[in-house]
């Protein structure tokens, strides 16, 4: 039997709008993944530490405030520093089109804007999470 995919869902920054993060956390859990929801106001350091401690395969960031171009590079950098380069990072929220190429270049390809179906996100994560040994 294959091991469950472990996902850390995090709300970085100051924003408290957590409807999306919570709905996704529950949907992923119902889809059979192991979900750890960090709660609000997490710094990139706290998120990467959580991923390390929880042995996460995937980090899901929910950002609606426009701070993603500051938070994402920092999270990616810290993951590399800690040797967690194979942890898949996905983001959901209000992400303008112009930022997509820059996020892709950082290694973030799962970018989910408002209206994305939960099934699509579940499928994406199932297909792209690192393979556990």
């Amino acid at each position, binding site marked *: 039997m294959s091991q469950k995919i472990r996902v850390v869902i995090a709300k970085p920054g*100051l924003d408290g709008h957590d*409807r999306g993060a*919570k709905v996704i956390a529950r949907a992923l859990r119902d889809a059979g993944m192991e979900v750890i929801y960090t709660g609000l*106001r997490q710094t990139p350091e706290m998120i990467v530490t959580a991923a390390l401690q929880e042995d996460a395969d995937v980090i899901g960031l929910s950002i609606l405030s426009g701070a993603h171009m500051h938070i994402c590079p920092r999270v990616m950098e810290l993951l590399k520093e800690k040797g967690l380069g194979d942890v898949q990072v996905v983001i959901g929220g209000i992400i*303008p089109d*112009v930022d997509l190429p820059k996020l892709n270049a950082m290694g973030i390809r799962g970018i989910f804007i408002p*209206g994305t*179906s939960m099934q699509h996100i579940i499928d994406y994560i199932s297909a792209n999470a690192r393979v556990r040994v």
Partner: protein
Amino acid sequence: MKSVADPASTRKNRWEREVVEPTLRKSPERKGTFTTISGRPIERLYTAQDVAAIDYDRDINNPGEFPYVRGIHPTGYRGKLWTMRQFAGFGTPEETNQRYQDLIAAGGTGLSVAFDLPTLMGRDPDHELCLGEVGKCGVSIMSLADMERLFAGISLADITTSMTINSPAPMIFAMYLVVAEQQGADWKTISGTIQNDILKEFIAQKEYIFPPRPSMRLITDIFAFCAKEVPKWNTISVSGYHIREAGSTSLQELAFTLRDGLEYVQYGVDAGLDVDDFVPRMSFFFNSHSDFFEEIAKYRAARKLWAEAMKNRFGAKNPRSWQLRFHTQTAGVSLTAQQPYNNVVRTALQALAAVLGGTNSLHTNSLDEALALPTRETATIALRTQQIIAHETGVTNVVDPLGGSYFIEKLTQDMVDGTLKYWDTIDGMGGMVEAIERGYPQQEVAESSYQFQQAVERKEKIIVGVNDFIQADERPIEILYIDDTASDVQLKRLAELKQTRDNECVRRTLEALKAVAKGHGNTMVPLLDCVRAYATVGEMCDALREVWGEYEEVPVI
């Protein structure tokens, strides 16, 4: 609405049997059950039977008369239209000031300030959690100096201002008062609103700083201060908007918001205030979502519930304490990033529901808000939407045009009954503060939110352009992109401020604030001194964090 000889029930039964059933045999209905966006089942037809228990004079009555189901003004919008109040703010105070000047020039009749997250969370821009947040979701206000810039050239004596600020409401309000004072405006006559509603932050929006009880004290301090010093100010805008945006049903929005309102009244009374001295300055703020009739029923029920609770539960004698006044904003959460022009239509219909429900003021969202903050053009279309409803549709000619509709009256009564049931549960827990500490409303909202998302996923609820009627070849629209200029400017200003102001005076006023926070005086008094010394929002909040600590929630999924 009592029926006589031929009972309505008999007539409806006959119609079901003789007319509907043969029709259904030939062509069945599209679905087995029809529900509102909140999942409330809706009957095929409403008749006199559904409203037989309603006594018009006692339960509904005419506009301007208790319990105000049909509105608080006898003449509805024939006298005065609602206030068209567009929420705006971004970047530096100067940029936002320019947007206000545009809105006033375009016929806007009130200002509404959106603050950025650092301001809302009581943090100065140099705090580590403010990375990338300065000036993004609203305007950055660090100290009195920024407030002076925000209202430069705008006479506070002549305009009403609504400020969406909660945990740091006392600090921001104190800044506004000092700017008014500098302009020579009289505190006794200026008017506006501070949101100042912390309970819904714990339930939904999560912009809290201090634990519930000291947070409640800050609010009752403002009630007491304003009753004496700023008598025309709306001291709180008890908000359901955010509860709804977090995924609640229409009924939960109504029930929790009004129950929050009762909690504030109770705390005010417990602090020694007379109900009729502060309740007339309380106002409310509701969402207008896409389910047209359910929303209209919600507003009508809200007025009745509040009037009856103030009169019977709190013994208020002043009719102004009974009259629920409210602002409405169309549902941001209903806007789609896909085919964004459709959002103009959604917003127009939601705005119409708010108007038919008798809103006292209204914000209409812009078509691009699922993508970014609105541009100048889209913000103007949003305002024009209200003007078209007000001046072209004729819906303002008559007071409460839907009153007497079997469906609307039944739905209104159902919303009242459902709310009273929620209130019983919350009263049973000891009150709203206790219910929040137990996570009860949070859990209710999280559950509804997930149920709705699943209904969308299963296509039981259709969102045009999202899970049906999808268009593959969409072209992106132009959006407002906020870069980091504002952040750079504000960080530089913060450093300069700390070098040029009298730092000894700042230290002294902050110490005085802490002393009052530890004791029982009114916190507004030392806060005004802190503001005059150009203490920052972050410094004032830190002083109180030192005394009261910070709230941390246990997340409920």
